[in-house]
């Protein structure tokens, strides 16, 4: 039996399940990257400060480590769990695939996670209680563990976009060290360092027992972690050169949203890097709290934009060439086209009070096909809403779009199912459109009247 759309569906009106994942994931990625960069910074800066007798930096690092346990150790950890929770609700089949293929990878990351958390707390609570050398060793352990967790998770994340030969042999390492593994690791390392650099400027400005000169010194040191941003463009080109061809086409203009987000992300990152190099390092400028927060906001947007692109160009798949974004396995498509998608999507049928697709009315059939194939990415009239998307389309266009879904819109999976299911979906969508247009007309009439 095909392993396809076997799960119940989590309905999230207005914002959609995908947006729930996106919100949690972007916050998590920002904090997780910050943790990695902050680990590298504190270990390096403490080592340097010990050698040079820089007591000011040591004092700052002590204060800064408090931010680490108060922000990423809480927000980062809980949003990390939050990603698991939310992806399991929205895409349980994809989550299941990631777990079953990479459980030992996840478990390995968990070991590093534990070492990271314990060493992070020890690092914070033993300032002044261990010798500087020993304390710095704890700092390096923390940095190592945090970075290694990135090294592991990067393999699994990039696997989803560019599994390469894994699709054929389904072997752990083939998927792990996939074509985008190394460029992505470089990109994430740059991102981690830069987020730490920016947050150091924010942190320095929020600590009130430092003079401006003292803050300036700290910000300049932190600014050095922003310099790698200059490598963002070549690293991105390297990354682009290794993603699947269809994904690259989307970035190059095939999907204008992807192109724009990619350009914004890249431009924002590079500009922050250039600002750091010329402003902070060469001219030794000072950054006040407002500017630091602005830089942080730009970095957050850039991180979000790049993550959006990474997720977006993977479409129409959730695991490239293996599983479509609606959870249907690529290998099952032919069978579902012959036997019907609803034959293997029992929950969408059961929810309408039927035991099999034969018991559904034509309208219910369309509704069930919509739930099975469209509802993971589209809401009815909220974020990525289907009603506004098809607004004004003639009936023939809706049908035509379903026929050519994947060829004319390469980020969409093909319609999968029998011709009767396709017709039912087209009619259901037309019904939604009629509702939408009559609602619009009503609201226009009312506003004219008032």
């Amino acid at each position, binding site marked *: *039996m095909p*392993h396809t759309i*076997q*799960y*119940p569906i989590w309905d999230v009106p207005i914002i959609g399940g995908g947006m729930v994942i996106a919100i949690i994931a972007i916050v998590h990625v920002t904090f997780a990257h910050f943790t990695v960069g902050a680990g590298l910074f504190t270990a390096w800066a403490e080592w340097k*400060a*010990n*050698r*040079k*007798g820089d*007591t000011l930096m040591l*004092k700052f690092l*002590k*204060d800064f480590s408090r931010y680490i*346990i108060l922000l990423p150790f809480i*927000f980062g*950890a*809980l949003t*990390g*769990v*939050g990603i698991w*929770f939310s992806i*399991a*609700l929205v895409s*349980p089949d994809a*989550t*299941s695939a990631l*777990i*079953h293929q*990479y*459980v*030992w990878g*996840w*478990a*390995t990351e*968990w*070991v*590093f996670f*534990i*070492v990271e*958390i*314990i060493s992070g*707390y*020890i690092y*914070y*609570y*033993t*300032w002044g*209680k*261990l*010798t*500087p*050398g*020993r304390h710095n060793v*704890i700092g390096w352990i923390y940095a190592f*563990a945090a970075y290694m967790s990135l090294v592991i998770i990067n393999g699994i994340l990039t696997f989803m976009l560019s599994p390469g030969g894994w699709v054929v042999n389904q072997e752990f390492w083939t998927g792990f060290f996939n074509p985008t593994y190394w460029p992505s690791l470089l990109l994430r390392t740059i991102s981690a360092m830069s987020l730490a650099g920016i947050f150091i400027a924010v942190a320095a400005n929020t600590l009130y027992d430092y003079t401006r000169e003292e803050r300036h010194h700290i910000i300049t040191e932190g600014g050095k972690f922003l310099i790698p941003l200059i490598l963002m463009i070549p690293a991105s080109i390297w990354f682009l050169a290794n993603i699947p061809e269809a994904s690259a086409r989307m970035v190059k203009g095939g999907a204008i949203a992807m192109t724009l987000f990619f350009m914004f992300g890249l431009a924002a990152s590079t500009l922050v890097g250039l600002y750091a190099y010329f402003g902070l390092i060469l001219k030794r400028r000072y950054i006040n709290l407002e500017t630091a927060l602005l830089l942080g906001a730009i970095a957050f947007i850039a991180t979000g934009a790049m993550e959006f692109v990474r997720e977006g160009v993977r479409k129409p798949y959730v695991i490239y060439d293996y599983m479509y974004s609606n959870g249907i*396995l690529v290998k099952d498509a032919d069978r579902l086209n012959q036997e019907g998608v609803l034959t293997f999507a029992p*929950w969408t049928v*059961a*929810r309408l009070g039927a035991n099999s697709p034969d018991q559904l009315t034509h309208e219910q059939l369309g509704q069930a096909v919509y739930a099975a194939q469209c509802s993971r990415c589209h809401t009815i009239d909220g974020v990525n809403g289907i009603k506004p998307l098809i607004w004004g389309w003639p009936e023939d266009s809706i049908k035509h779009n379903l026929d050519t879904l994947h060829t004319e819109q390469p980020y969409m999976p093909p319609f999968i199912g029998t011709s009767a299911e396709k017709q039912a979906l087209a009619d259901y969508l037309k019904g939604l459109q009629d509702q939408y247009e009559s609602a619009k007309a009503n609201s226009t009439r009312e506003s004219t009247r008032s």
Partner: protein
Amino acid sequence: MNGLIPTPDPLGAPSPTIIFQLLGWLTLVLHFAFMNFILGGTLIVTIQEWLFGHRPVIARANSLMLKTMPVALSMAITMGVAPLLFVQVLHGQFFYSANIMMGWYWMAILGLVTVAFYLIYVLISLRPLDGRATLLSRLIVLVNAAIFITVSLIFTNNATLVEHPELWAKIHAGELSPLVMDTKFWMRWSHTVFGALAVAGLWCSGIGLFQKRYHAANREAGEWMYRNGLYWAKSGVFLAMIVGFIYLFTLGGDTLKNFMGNGFMFVGWAVSVCTAFVGLALMVMATIKKDQPKYYWAAVAVVFITLFGMVMGRDLLRYIALEPYYTLSDLTVRPHVSSLALFLGTFVIGLLILAYMIRLLWTVPGDPPTDGAPQETPAAAGESIAAPVEEAAAAVPDEPADEASKVSDQSDDSVQKEPDEGEEPKPDAPQA
């Protein structure tokens, strides 16, 4: 109904299922050890704070409990990741479906725990070490207790839904609430909460022992915590046993027959029942012979074994409930040795790193001994990392540049200067 149950993942499992079960049990016990402290400890502090918070010794004991909670909560979350992983490998299709049934209730856990985490820090900064906590502080403790109880209800509900796929269709159709809340549910949940009180009681005693031994200023509070923790632990074990047995007998004859028919896991559970009695006896002994903590440590070890067996019994009951739909043999095993080796190798390295860090912590000196212990008696990791935020912040040494430089050039074998040097000594701060 069977047609609605998702099939096992076609990618299968990369190792025999018993490996995931064993690791799942072990990591779940570790998660429970911390989680129970958070849930039970918050309840204990709340009760003590509201009813007896005017007594200085209890006020101080509450402060000492609260200060250990941020690290404990972090550990509870971190330790929870591994069993979450293994559950998904073994019966993810049931776990995900139950999650989906609960939807936002399930997602609410994240927001609730985040709020509670920050509230613990707020409490630590608000609460004086001694003296009656302010009304605001007491209210926050109450809010946190409500949050952790809610989270425990959500988790118990999810675990219950996993075992009752027959409810899913009605819940999904909106005909039934996803919150089960039947008698069995309340029995199961009460068993969890009483168990949490027992484990938290043992933690309380342990913190008390530590404070008594290494921190002269907390000696009285430490003694009280030791005795009082044992009281909570005994009560918790006793009540958990009673509720646990009633819960077991409400499961029905067939389930019980199957339960007892499974050799290996049933034996594990049965041993844990025996060890629960032994643990209770050891706690009584520790209470009578309060100057002999060996009984306490023996009770801790025995309760750990009990938790392990109970987790096995819990697992067994779940698979019995799922038997009409699924058995572990339905999951294809496609062994992949090198990825398992990656994990095991990393696990060993991780343990070595942890051992190394604990050894380093052992070099941190504690207070002058108060009971004849050797002068170099080390502070244990738990205390060092449990120090309050403000205390740790206050302990930042303002080392002169040259001194820091000098020290860093020295051998790492020497312990750094007294960190409180040049500061006003804080009578309550863990001295370094």
